């Protein structure tokens, strides 16, 4: 049942990303990837399983968006780094095991983890997408603007989970 819920949550995030956020092209620099919420909020599970979920999400995004391996590389990195960062940021005793655990780890760690992973994810996606450092300023602008929107959505979601 737990796995079914995770898969359904992943499909929902994929649907929201492709129907709503993929169509946001504000000022040409705002391309938020809110599906990263799925990776951040995955519950505690064996690391290999978390990595496989990340890889599957990346491949699905790449196939739908026709971006060759870009999201796969970013998602694989985020899902590998997340358990290590979570272990460093949140004490074992503070972690609450639930369906969406990172969100229930506490507000401060959730914010820190979300910001860090979102920035790393967006930086990887936009840098690989540009495939050249000659436009580094544009890549950074995209990371800042898109990352800010993604983090805003993450906070709203985290706040709702926290309240409930």
């Amino acid at each position, binding site marked *: 049942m737990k796995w079914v819920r995770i898969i359904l949550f992943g499909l929902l995030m994929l649907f929201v990303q*492709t*129907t709503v956020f993929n*169509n946001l*092209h504000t000022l*040409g620099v705002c*391309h938020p990837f809110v599906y990263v919420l799925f990776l951040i909020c995955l519950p505690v599970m064996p*690391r*290999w399983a978390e*990595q496989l979920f*990340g*890889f599957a999400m*990346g491949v699905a995004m*790449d*196939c*739908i*968006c*026709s*971006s*060759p*391996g*870009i999201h*796969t*590389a970013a998602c*694989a*990195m985020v899902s*590998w780094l997340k358990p290590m960062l979570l272990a460093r940021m949140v004490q074992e005793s503070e972690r609450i095991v639930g369906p969406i655990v990172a969100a229930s780890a506490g507000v401060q760690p959730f914010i820190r983890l979300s910001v860090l992973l979102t920035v790393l994810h967006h930086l990887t996606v936009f840098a*690989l*997408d*540009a*495939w*050249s450092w000659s*436009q580094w300023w*544009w890549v950074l602008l995209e990371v800042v603007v898109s990352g800010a929107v993604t983090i805003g959505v993450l906070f709203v979601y985290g706040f709702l989970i926290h309240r409930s």
Partner: protein
Amino acid sequence: MHNLLRLIQKYGNFLLFLVMEVAAFLWLFSEQKLQQSTFLASSNSAIASYNLLLTNADEYFHLREENGALAAENARLRERLHRLESVVEDSVERDSSYVYSHLQWDYMPARVVDVATNSGHNYLVLNKGSRDGVREGEGVLSHDGVVGVVSAVNRHFAQVIPVIHPKMRLSCRIHRNGQMGFLEWTGPSSRYANLTDIGRHIVVEEGDTIETNGLTGLFPEGVTIGVIDKVELPEGDTYYNLRVALATDFKSLRYVQIVHNPLTAEQDSMRVKK
């Protein structure tokens, strides 16, 4: 063997991460060499159907804009029809080859089902393929101007490399004085490209229209590409730096026309002989 197992046990997650990254980068590198791979992935039936579903949903939100654009295009086509009718009438007394040069193009409407406009891998996917008679190397226009060139075709879909692609170099001219140059795109904005090979002895002004010159056989002569938006002439440089505001808005592009020139093969064969 025992050591190998211990290694996997200890660094299994890192090895899995490495395998995933290698797979992702192989995918990315294969795309650098060949644009087809992503196209094949995006045009397989399941993904294409999903993209088509998204496009259908998206269209409902833009019906008003589309109606406006279609009405404007109707007006333009009507005007063009009148012009061609007058050309045909005139030509009865004049030269029939002039008429033929204007009527040789076939236009096939197509819908954009997938688009990427914010990267070094810009492309469009159209809902017309080889089944409909689309062939590689055919030009694509929007009702505003030039879009790009068909780069790959399968049965139901066609991939288009737009003018906002780093590998695209389109021969064109300045409408006012007929000076030839090349349109190139280096990014990052999808609204602007550069016009190159215009020497400093030529008078160029902001607002000059850039259009196709008909030399490639891909597009009819005189189709708008854009307008010169910024003119720079660096001290001691032989050529201008010209920024062109493109007529086509790639971010809101929904309908295009694939241009078929039945004389392309004949024209190309003469080019080879030369």
